[in-house]
């Protein structure tokens, strides 16, 4: 009993097939069933940019009892729904892991085309009659994926009920016969799985059900952004479709009007940000979502938002660049654009969440900050974070302020209104159109306290100071972690500094390195602008060696940090279009640790 209670679950499954095989769909049922059963899930799908055709689809799902930070490089089981696509991924199955395939796919298959011939020594073959069982139970071969899933569930003695529930849910809008036949396919394969001898040692264990006053849900980064927007009371959204940000607009198109909000698909990204800033000027909580190419179009308007001190929230999910780049591949190469993009000295707030829960937080807090500091706030995501699923714990109580704007005091209402008055915290009380006694004009021109054009040197200096210094308040904004250190405390040999979605891989690598006895810690920086310089400096002085891994060629975050800190550090840059390998980070940690040891 004690042993089973202590069993820590950590398995990763990989479903691989062709577009049309239901690869992503079966991955989806699996992860939902696991989340329903109470496990923690982290999942990421890869599919081709083309809509039709025979592109390769991969769905990876990691199931754990404690929340994992990233996917593992090696999976425990590979489920092949298309052998020619799955064969190159056999090497990603760990030793004594299993490969599940259709043992009798189609009659005419040349030798060598079947995956069973490609297994490596130590990998376990599970041939299943996928097509046959699918035909028998549903009258067609479309349910092959469900058969594979059923077999898998039976093999590992997983509870049937969560799977049944998710399958029923999946087909609830279709003819009940479809749901019934798919359940039959699942159960038939499940029974076959149970009676099959299991060769490896995966133990799934029983998840612990926690009740900590919060709701556990499974969602993608983009879905978390949507939830954050809705919980923060988003009123208007303007957007233009672009991968991988589109699903934010799609979900809001359904959900925002239910709460009385308004969404408009604009003619381009320039109008999306322009309307967002217009709505912000008029006093509404407003947002847009885009990717790098769209953000490139938006930067002129961002400058106006900075100059005219108008709140707006911009979600940017990065993909491979430059230019159109790699629309369905992940990358972290829009940092320069987000932090610096635009004409003039136009500092703005940039937040980069590191996981799905962080995406929710940053999304909601972005509205508070935009209002409080009267500025554009960019929330920088990437394709990996936008599309990956995680089980998250969302607070039951809405954690966001409904109105964070600085308003005129009672006395101030009596005197002529100066929109850009100089104040202690550099934030001027703001009025919005329709408000009595608050009439003013804002402009992209440099201006005086009234908002009238003014290009005198002393005015430009004072206003520049105002615009920059007011953002320092954001470093102490309540309710959001803008940087955090993990791992060993105090002085360490190796420190890993990271940002965005790659921080998951960094944490996983750090944990392994700690297990190996390396003295190391990792720091995530969530607020990229203004940069929380002091804790970063402290981290630098605590670590003998610093490693900055990121998914871009130029080392954009390293450049940002390096411009403020003179101490040397090591860059680790990768541009594979997929998440960074934990092993690559680990190798570099080991190398740096050895360097420290040999120097000592």
């Amino acid at each position, binding site marked *: 009993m004690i042993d089973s209670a202590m069993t820590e679950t950590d398995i990763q499954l990989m479903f691989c097939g062709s577009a049309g095989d239901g690869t992503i769909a079966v991955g989806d049922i699996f992860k939902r069933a696991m989340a329903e059963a109470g496990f923690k899930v982290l999942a990421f799908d890869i599919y081709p940019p083309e809509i039709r055709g025979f592109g390769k689809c991969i769905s990876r799902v990691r199931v754990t009892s404690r929340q994992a930070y990233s996917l593992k490089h090696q999976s425990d089981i590979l489920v092949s729904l298309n052998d020619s696509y799955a064969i190159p991924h056999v090497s990603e199955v760990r030793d004594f892991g299993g490969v599940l395939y259709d043992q009798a796919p189609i009659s005419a298959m040349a030798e060598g085309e079947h995956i069973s011939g490609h297994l490596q020594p130590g990998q376990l073959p599970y041939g299943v009659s996928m097509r046959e069982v699918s035909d028998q139970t549903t009258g067609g071969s479309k349910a092959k994926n469900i058969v594979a899933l059923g077999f898998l569930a039976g093999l590992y003695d997983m509870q049937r009920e969560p799977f049944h529930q998710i399958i029923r849910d999946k087909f609830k809008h279709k003819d009940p016969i479809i749901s019934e036949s798919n359940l039959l396919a699942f159960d038939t394969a499940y029974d076959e799985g149970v009676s099959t001898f299991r060769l490896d040692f995966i133990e799934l264990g029983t998840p612990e059900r926690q009740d900590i006053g919060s709701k556990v849900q499974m969602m993608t980064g983009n879905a978390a952004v949507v939830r954050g927007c809705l919980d923060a009371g988003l*009123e*208007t959204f*303007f957007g233009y479709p672009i991968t991988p940000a589109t699903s934010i607009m799609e979900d809001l198109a*359904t959900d925002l*009007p*239910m709460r*009385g*909000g*308004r*969404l*408009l698909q*604009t*003619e*381009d990204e*320039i*109008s*999306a940000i*322009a*309307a*967002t*800033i*217009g*709505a*912000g*000027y*008029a*006093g*509404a909580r*407003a947002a847009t979502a885009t990717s790098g190419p769209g953000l490139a179009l938006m930067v*002129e*308007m961002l400058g*106006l938002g900075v100059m*005219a001190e108008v709140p707006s929230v911009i979600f940017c999910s990065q993909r491979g660049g430059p230019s159109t780049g790699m629309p369905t591949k992940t990358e972290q190469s829009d940092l320069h654009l987000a932090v610096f993009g635009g004409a003039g000295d136009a500092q703005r707030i940039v937040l980069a969440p590191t996981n799905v829960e962080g995406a929710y937080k940053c999304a909601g807090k972005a509205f508070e900050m935009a209002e409080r500091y009267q500025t554009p706030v960019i929330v920088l995501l990437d394709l990996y974070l936008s599309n990956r699923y995680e089980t998250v714990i969302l607070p039951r109580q809405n954690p966001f302020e409904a109105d964070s704007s600085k308003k005129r005091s009672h006395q101030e209402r009596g005197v002529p209104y100066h929109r850009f008055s100089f104040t202690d915290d550099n934030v001027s009380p703001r009025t*919005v*159109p*329709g*408000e*009595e*006694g*608050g*009439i*003013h*004009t*804002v*402009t*992209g*021109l440099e201006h005086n306290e009234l908002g*009238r*054009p003014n290009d005198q040197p002393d005015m430009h200096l004072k206003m520049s100071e105002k615009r920059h210094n007011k953002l320092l308040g954001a470093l102490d904004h309540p309710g959001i972690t803008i940087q955090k250190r993990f791992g060993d405390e105090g002085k360490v040999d190796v420190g890993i500094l990271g940002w965005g979605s790659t921080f998951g891989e960094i944490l996983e690598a750090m944990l392994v390195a700690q297990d190996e006895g390396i003295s190391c810690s990792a720091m995530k920086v969530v607020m990229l602008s203004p940069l929380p310089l002091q804790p970063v400096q402290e981290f630098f002085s605590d670590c003998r060696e610093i490693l900055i891994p990121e998914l871009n060629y130029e080392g954009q975050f390293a450049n940002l940090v390096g411009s403020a800190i003179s101490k040397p550090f090591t860059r680790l840059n990768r541009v594979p279009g997929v998440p960074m390998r934990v092993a690559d980070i680990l190798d570099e940690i080991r190398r740096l640790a050895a360097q420290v040891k040999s120097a000592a």
Partner: protein
Amino acid sequence: MGNLRQPVYLEEKLEQVRESGRLNIRSKALPTWCPGCGYFSIVDGVTMAINQLQINQKDVTVVSGIGCASRFPFFLDTYGFHTLHGRTLPVATGIKVANDDLTVLAIGGDGDAFAIGGAHIPHAARRNVDITYMVFDNGIYGLTKGQTSPTSVLGFTTSTSPYQNQDRPLNPLLMMLSYDASWIGQSYAGDPRHLSEMITQAIAHRGFSYLHILSPCVTFDKTSKTYSNLKAQVRNLPDDHDSSDRMAAIGYSMDVDTPPIGLFYKESRPTLSDKLDLIVDKARGRNARASG
């Protein structure tokens, strides 16, 4: 000699203007335009219209782009947003989407509207955003000191067309008629009475109103769209023009040599806000069904 008009003395006139209250709608800022610029009469027309329609100044927001015309918001005592070159309409759309109660005036010049901002016009028009878009067309870039614009006439000589403009000018009214704007009119800065009447109608229209205002640039255009040339060319639309007849309006819009002024076309249809409200109703209906 009995039909001689009574003389009006300046002081009496001033008193009349003061009493009308429309001076209050002007801001204290001194306009940056050249003496004789047609835009002065447009400011006058707008204040008269706001006054006549009895709209509270705090409920008016004037949005503009970049250019001489776009300096407009500074000279009114209303809420104003002087935005970026060409982006008047999307900013105005955002403001209107955020707050239906505001009277939103969008203002720009011919370059702001039809060169850099051209992509936004059809969409504001087809969505029928309830704003009034006034384009002050002088056929030249004035703020940058006299370059060719998309409405400069063929053969016009400027600093960027020293060998004369070789491109045919755009026909904004014809564009607006095909873009489905729900109110389309033209006026002339040299006829303040007509101008203020047209501005009043345009603001009163519920939906996207487009008012094209011919206005001379007295500093950089001495030959083409001058007061004397425009005065000779401009004529009133015939009294019997049916403003619901789009084909007839298209015919008049093509008369660029003797531009007709007046109301070209008008139709009543749901505004963007009406449609967004409908979407909210539909979403809530679906939601009610789903949870019911």
